[in-house]
């Protein structure tokens, strides 16, 4: 566990030493708040739920999570510091988990700031606390899946920008995969599969406050799979 924490601390150090973290956090909080209060018009609705607030998050995550993970390996590969990390007494999996944990802590800090929104509106009406908990659980799990995908793409790259663009594109595709069903009539089995693979299908249950085990399993599987693949990439690079 300790080695993972050492790497995570280094990641956080470089997030907070560059403008990236501050810009990302500010932008994220600003956009979600503006959306919820000004565009979505929470105050004008007779509806005591944060569903609208959380509804925007997966879309912001499509650019936000890749922005956090784009540096993770691409920058190390480019500057040569990957050579330092990989020759220190860490296993590949520890390095990948450390970088993942660092990025996740940044997202958690960001989500902690969003607590200001529920805390502000809570006194105004009778909210379902369970619903809000479900929304946060879903958001954190979605972030895990997105961050691990982003790190995997970054591990294959030497260029932050291409890592950012490719992970954004991939995240967009797997987020809205279910849209395929809206525009074409797939065989039933295929249609259900596509629906299941789409990140947003599951996120909608979380946004309604349902902690659906299928969603939990799906997000967790994606996270584990991409973390494993990132570690594999590091090992394969040693052999090639």
């Amino acid at each position: 566990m300790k080695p993972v924490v050492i790497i995570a601390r280094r990641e956080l150090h470089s997030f907070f030493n560059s403008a990236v973290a501050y810009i990302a956090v500010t932008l994220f909080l600003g956009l979600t708040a503006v959306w919820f209060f000004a565009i979505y018009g929470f105050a004008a609705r007779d509806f005591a739920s944060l569903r609208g607030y959380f509804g925007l998050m997966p879309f912001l995550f499509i650019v936000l999570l890749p922005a956090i993970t784009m540096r993770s390996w691409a920058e190390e590969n480019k500057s040569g510091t990957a050579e330092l990390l990989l020759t220190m007494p860490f296993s590949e999996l520890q390095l990948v988990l450390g970088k993942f944990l660092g990025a996740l802590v940044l997202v958690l800090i960001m989500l902690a700031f969003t607590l200001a929104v529920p805390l502000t509106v809570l006194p105004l009406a009778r909210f379902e606390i369970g619903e809000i908990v479900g929304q946060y659980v879903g958001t954190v799990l979605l972030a895990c899946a997105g961050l691990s995908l982003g790190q995997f793409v970054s591990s294959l790259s030497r260029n932050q920008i291409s890592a950012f663009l490719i992970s954004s594109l991939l995240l967009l595709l797997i987020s809205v995969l279910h849209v395929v069903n809206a525009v074409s009539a797939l065989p039933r089995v295929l249609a259900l599969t596509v629906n299941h693979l789409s990140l947003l299908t599951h996120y909608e249950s979380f946004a309604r406050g349902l902690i659906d085990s299928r969603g939990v399993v799906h997000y967790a599987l994606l996270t584990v799979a991409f973390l494993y693949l990132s570690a594999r990439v590091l090992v394969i690079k040693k052999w090639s």
Partner: protein
Amino acid sequence: MIELTEVHKSYGSLKAVAGVSFSIKAGEIVGLLGPNGAGKTTILKILTGFHYPDSGSARVDGLEISEAPLLIKRTLGYLPESAPLYDDFTVREYLHFVARARRIAPGDRQRRCAAAIEACGLSSVVQRPIATLSKGYRQRTGLAQAMLHDPDILILDEPTSGLDPNQILEIRRLIRSLGESKTVVLSTHIMQEVEALCDRVLILNKGRIAATGTAAQIAAELSGGARYAISVIAAPGSDESVFADVEHLAGVRDVRISRLERAVRISAELSLLPGVPAGAEAGTREGIDYDAGAALFDWAVAHGLRISELQPLRRSLEELFVELTR
């Protein structure tokens, strides 16, 4: 301590290392010398477990590196080529990160960092962000990083590149003192560096070992023997015929008498084939170690000659390097 056997490594279609074997004993300072692209860096990357060989075996302390990478990485300190560092740290923060990463006990970190800062002459820049450091300070920070955890083996890829002459001398002194208790493998393309620092040299060319030995051995091997200039003071009345006998000395060939002064001082230049003391084969290790200078001295004593000058004429490593890597 370190043993490479028939190691091959290619990057795509580029063959970087083609069948290299050597072994390094504990406590040796070994230099890898060669032109750019000769495979020096690749060999160091294999030793540190950053890359695994395509075929052949690379062992440290008897363990195959790719089978026990974590264990081996603990015993190594590594300065990669061009000293990559985390620019967003200050020197102190960076060394403390390395100390944690190297699992130095919390109580020891402060002391070890201070020692490395002192040894590498970094005291004046500890608070500066690494991004603002000059090439020389970056290089020294990299070296401090490599020696921080007091590893048994130091792998240094071009440790003095980018330094000015004073800094080069300082770093060489540091490497030499580290070499007293550690095994050091370093690469360089500077010949004097090898002569100044290394117990042994491996000259690499196109992914293969072109020559190995001490700088002097390589010189002797390649020039086909050792050359000496000798001046003797002979008894009055003798002439160059005193040299007739030297040709019977083990290994002597090509005696050229260049100077004859007043029939008392006789100078000659002669080359000695390596390795013809009784029973040894030419070109073998024993042969190379054969001390031709001592043999000449014995010869002079036996003939009642007084040596006023005896100078080995060594070809410079530069000349040999050019010849080997052409």
